[in-house]
């Protein structure tokens, strides 16, 4: 009932003023990352004076499609969708396209991303960037320490997960490419399934082999923190090793402030939300937008950590 009232009021306001009216369907509200994204979008909407109607699909594909059809029926000027299921986006694209309403997907890459119709786009961060930024910074730190050759361990996320596969590939690409400038040998690479506990055990097992190493590159912060806990337990000086993660979680930032974590990468959730809204508005005004808009990942180091403490 409340939803209908809000929808009704929003429609009234939308028609009375000639302001843009954007419908937003989020996959779910109670996800930390998606909440930051949603708030980023709402803040951007307030800043530029656009009416937003944000709905929660509660992880239900059917409900999301209904919401989109309702948006179309109530005459919104554009729709932003954070897809529940990335393989179920074709129907959404078709519905919006048939009605001539612009549609922007945010954060999760739709299955039809390469065949999106006119007036549709995808806004997210390019997963390839995260592992690349991370590994390049590790290279730089090794160079700064005056090393020409370094041994590292690689902790991978869940082997079946696309992000883990891409991030691990990035590590190999940077190490094997011309940009690193330091010869990096991977002593071993194993999975921790994104879990801190498994990373901790894995690192302790590696330490028990006694091989000298200069750093650990992990696919996510939780794994990097697990490695840190194991290395500290073994009494190794954290200043002598480089530890790199991805995500810039609060735990990771605390570890960085404590001087344990050296590198992490921030995925700009609020930036993606704002970017999606901007793209939707441009499309509704008939302006051209790239089919894939990438909001850059950002490198977080002890030098700029202050900018990120309040962000995730």
């Amino acid at each position, binding site marked *: 009932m409340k939803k209908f009232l809000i929808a009704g009021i929003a429609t009234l306001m939308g028609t009375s003023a000639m302001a843009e009216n954007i419908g937003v369907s989020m996959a779910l509200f109670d996800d930390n990352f998606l909440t930051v994204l949603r708030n980023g979008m709402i803040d951007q909407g307030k800043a530029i004076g656009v009416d937003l109607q944000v709905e929660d699909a509660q992880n239900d594909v059917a409900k999301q499609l209904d919401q989109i059809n309702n948006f179309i029926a109530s005459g919104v000027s554009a729709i932003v969708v954070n897809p529940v299921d990335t393989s179920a986006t074709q129907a959404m694209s078709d519905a919006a396209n048939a009605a001539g309403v612009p549609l922007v997907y945010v954060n999760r890459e739709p299955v039809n991303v390469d065949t999106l119709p006119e007036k549709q786009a995808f806004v997210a961060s390019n997963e390839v960037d995260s592992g690349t930024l991370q590994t390049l910074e590790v290279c730089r730190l090794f160079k700064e320490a005056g090393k020409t050759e370094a041994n590292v361990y690689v902790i991978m996320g869940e082997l079946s997960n696309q992000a883990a596969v891409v991030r691990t590939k990035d590590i190999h690409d940077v190490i094997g490419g011309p940009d690193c400038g330091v010869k990096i040998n991977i002593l071993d690479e*194993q*999975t921790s399934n994104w*879990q801190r*506990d498994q990373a901790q055990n894995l690192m302790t097992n590696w330490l*028990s082999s006694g091989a000298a190493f200069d750093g650990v590159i992990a696919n996510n912060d*939780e794994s990097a923190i697990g490695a840190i806990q194991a290395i500290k337990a073994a009494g190794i000086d954290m200043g002598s090793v480089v530890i790199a993660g991805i995500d810039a979680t*609060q735990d990771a930032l605390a570890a960085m402030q404590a001087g344990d974590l050296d590198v992490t990468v921030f995925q700009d959730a609020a930036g993606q939300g704002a970017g999606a809204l901007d793209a939707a508005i441009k499309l509704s005004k008939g302006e051209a937008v790239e089919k894939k808009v990438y909001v850059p990942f950002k490198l977080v180091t002890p030098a700029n950590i202050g900018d990120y403490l309040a962000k995730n």
Partner: protein
Amino acid sequence: MSTTTHGLGGLKYDPSRRARAPEWNVFFALIGIVLIFELVGRIFMGDSFLFNTRDNVDAIFNHQRLQIIILQVSITGIIALGVTQVIISGGIDLSSGSIVGATAMVAMSFAQVAMVNGNPNPKAIFAAQGWLDLPVIVPVMVGLGCGLLAGFVNGALVAYTKIPPFIATLGMMVTARGIAKWWSKGNPISFPTDSYAAIGKGMMPVVIFVGLAVLFHLILTYTRYGKHCYGIGSNEQAMRMSGINVEKSKVLIYVIAGLLSALAAIVLSSKNLTAQAGMGVMYELDAIAMAVIGGVSLQGGRGSIIGTVLGALIFGVIISGFTFLKLDAYYQEMVKGVIIVGAVVLDQWRQRGRGRG
């Protein structure tokens, strides 16, 4: 099924049957696996699995590896102690891993510090209530309370509604995982007090695991409760006819299993300095596998704590051995599965031989 229980006669306790303890076979398997890793390591890696090969350390064994072998299985091992009792009594507990997740979340939220690096704790759950920097006894008791409650529900469902333990604990598995996710809406809970962090620090998980293993070995061997576990598992009807309150015993068995899962959650979240809704996923299966490898029969009535501890050690040796040999991550799970099934097949063959003899 009939061959394994053939001739045991329910409550009849025949000391001569236990003279050749099956635990010895598990022990020999453990030694065998260690030898294989030692041999393969020497031949292909030019390094020793167990012995110290570093010049800068003066020791016979590689202490660090010996420690991690047991450290990495001690938390699932604590769970396996409870699972062993459940399986011996003819039941099964699929909910342990989810109880770990839910308990870790709830307990950790009562163990948080107020300030992190000079800033207010960004993950504080009860900041508004001011429940921060509480004495360590609070999260521990709250955590154990969660385990007790979950175990009681499991036990009561199994004992009084008569639904199969598989279904009752499957329900708890799904529900408890739901609670773990709902508690903080999926957000991790971090930054515990120093006193809470001390519970799982260093080799403490091993100390707790070994201490509890000794305790429950004595309980299962020498107390009436222990005899009831074996009795219910081998012949529940006979137990009932002997006037034993089977229902009460069953509830107690599941309560103990729930408490041990909760304790594992406290140790795990303390060791990791964080609680996450996904913690403990698949732990129930690892715990069951440890018990089964250790000779605990899924048909009930047979098995021991010593066997389960040996089963846990085999698990630990395999994990460390794989990493030692730098076996590709993709192969590790495949091989692990083969070893679990292989251990049970060997055990079945051995049992069949014993049954005929």
